[in-house]
């Protein structure tokens, strides 16, 4: 692949070295496990966990005479993902054998796609930020290709002093390898790209994106250069399994390379591992010889072919993706910041839309983001575990809107619904939380406060802003249930303060 530089160096992204500024260049290969019941070429289960070698067919164990038969759902999922990445879909693609020896690879080759992948070039639009002013920067990261391939088995090295344990449950599970172009220029951009990619895959339902279960792993290519110069030699950091670690690995690796170059050294192209405990990358013991995978078309498999009509049908059924959803939310009057948070997870967006249905979008967004997500975050819960349903939160907002409760009481009401559940409207009735709009009752409270504080009444004549103190006292006396606007108007009238 020819590397094309699509970006202009910008001072804010550069890393200062001892002898001047450096620019970091990042590309990523993401392995995403396809959501399917059975494996790419066999009928064994893809379920996570399972007893050793229980989800293994004779095909996955590479027993002699076994033949691979492709899973139509995996093809469908790869095409849908390609469409979500706005990528070229190849109606004809070819499976190749990538040959190497390792104990968790019983075939002695991985069935992958080399020269003719199922999906070609695409684009991911990434919002990087927000910065301190709350602004996002939109960058485009090119997708070089997406291809289907088999996962390998799993080796465990810590069970025995001289032996490794091999479990083939993962062997043959379908992966999509999504290769980006070297279009990222900072660890923040790389993290934002991976976050966005995961969000697209989750919206599509083509990969669950659970990095801690290994359903999504990233190989990160990092190189540095002086701004404006050609690309430098890159190192590949293998199998990074969290978005945070991707950021840490890039920061460490870029500085390691800069230190070597500034000392007059040169970078060896090599594969490195990230050690999350130490926060550093280290060289994998260098291979005795360079990898030579001797790719060739797999003679067990015919070319993978489908029609444009098949692709069009999948395109028509694609769900609304984060970018479109965000644009729609912004059209409802939400800020880019709010819209970005709401579309970050499909479940959050769905929740918000239920709350916003027939209500003010901005108010719904504020409640979902500040109150609901805030409380979920504090409780360490996900949106799928929320104790407050969209209908309940909607009812709280309705009660403010129709003047039944004040915004302040609404916060208390939310907390009650969060802790105890129940119908917000009934709770307000039962616990006497209704806002007092009855001017007579408010007037009595105002009169009492004025009568009890003659000294303050004197002061307020000289300093009209003191009126706020009276409003506060009245609110306190009424347990926060008085309508604040009504209190303010009455206080000012009684004290003879001009509006």
């Amino acid at each position, binding site marked *: 692949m020819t590397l094309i530089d699509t970006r202009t160096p910008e001072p804010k992204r550069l890393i200062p070295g001892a002898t001047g500024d450096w620019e970091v260049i990042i590309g990523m290969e993401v392995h995403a496990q396809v959501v399917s019941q059975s494996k790419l070429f066999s009928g064994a289960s893809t379920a996570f966990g399972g007893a050793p070698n229980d989800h293994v067919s004779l095909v996955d164990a590479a027993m002699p005479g076994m033949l691979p038969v492709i899973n139509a*759902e995996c093809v469908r999922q790869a095409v849908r993902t390609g469409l979500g990445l706005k990528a070229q879909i190849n109606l004809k693609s070819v499976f190749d054998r990538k040959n190497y020896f390792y104990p968790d690879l019983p075939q002695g080759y991985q069935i992958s796609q080399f020269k003719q992948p199922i999906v070609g070039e695409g684009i991911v639009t990434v919002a990087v930020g927000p910065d301190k002013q709350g602004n996002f920067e939109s960058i485009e990261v090119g997708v070089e290709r997406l291809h289907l391939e088999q996962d390998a088995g799993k080796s465990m090295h810590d069970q025995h002093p001289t032996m490794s*344990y091999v479990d083939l449950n993962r062997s043959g599970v379908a992966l999509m390898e999504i290769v980006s172009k070297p279009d990222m220029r900072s660890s923040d951009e790389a993290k934002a790209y991976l976050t966005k990619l995961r969000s697209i895959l989750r919206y599509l339902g083509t990969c669950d994106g659970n990095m801690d279960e290994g359903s999504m792993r990233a190989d990160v290519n990092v190189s540095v250069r002086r701004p404006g110069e050609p690309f430098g030699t890159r190192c590949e950091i293998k199998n990074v399994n969290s978005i945070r670690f991707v950021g840490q690995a890039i920061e460490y690796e870029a500085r390691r390379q800069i230190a070597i170059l500034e000392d007059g050294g040169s970078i060896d192209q090599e594969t490195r591992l990230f050690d999350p405990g130490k926060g550093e990358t280290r060289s994998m013991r260098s291979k005795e010889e360079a990898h030579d995978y001797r790719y060739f078309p797999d003679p067990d498999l015919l070319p993978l072919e489908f029609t444009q009509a098949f692709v069009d049908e999948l395109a028509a059924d694609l769900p609304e993706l984060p970018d479109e959803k965000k644009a729609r939310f912004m059209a409802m009057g939400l800020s880019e910041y709010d819209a970005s948070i709401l579309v970050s997870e499909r479940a959050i967006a769905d929740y918000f839309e239920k709350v916003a249905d027939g209500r003010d979008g901005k108010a719904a967004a504020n409640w979902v983001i500040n109150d609901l997500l805030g409380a979920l975050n504090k409780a360490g819960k996900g949106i799928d575990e929320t104790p407050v349903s969209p209908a309940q939160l909607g009812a709280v907002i309705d009660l403010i809107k129709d003047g039944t409760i004040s915004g302040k009481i609404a916060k208390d009401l939310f907390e009650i619904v969060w802790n105890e559940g129940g119908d917000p409207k009934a709770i307000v009735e039962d616990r006497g939380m209704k806002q007092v709009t009855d001017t007579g009752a408010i007037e009595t409270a105002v009169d009492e406060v004025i009568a009890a504080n003659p000294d303050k009444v004197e002061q307020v004549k000289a300093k009209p802003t003191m009126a706020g103190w009276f409003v506060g006292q009245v609110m306190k006396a009424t347990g926060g249930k008085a309508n604040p606007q009504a209190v303010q108007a009455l206080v000012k009238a009684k004290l003879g303060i001009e509006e």
Partner: protein
Amino acid sequence: MSVDLDTVKRVARLARIAVTEEDVSALTGKLNSILGFVEHLDEVDVSGVEPMTSVIPMEMKKRIDEVTDGGKAADIVANAPATEDNFFLVPKVVE
């Protein structure tokens, strides 16, 4: 096309086939005679001809996505020289 001694050694190593020094030169001769035989195919002009992937024109067969296999761990490891709890045991490999 022909191969030299180093290429034969390298290919043997990539295929994890142990080849002694004495065997290498004999193998090189044999491989080169096979390659020479295959080279006859170069006499045919195939420009503009798509590579043939199947003798009869047919589409790749596809499976529907359902679990139809597995649950036979004992069979899977039956031939393994060393096992424990249905894991394969192999000499320690660690990077």
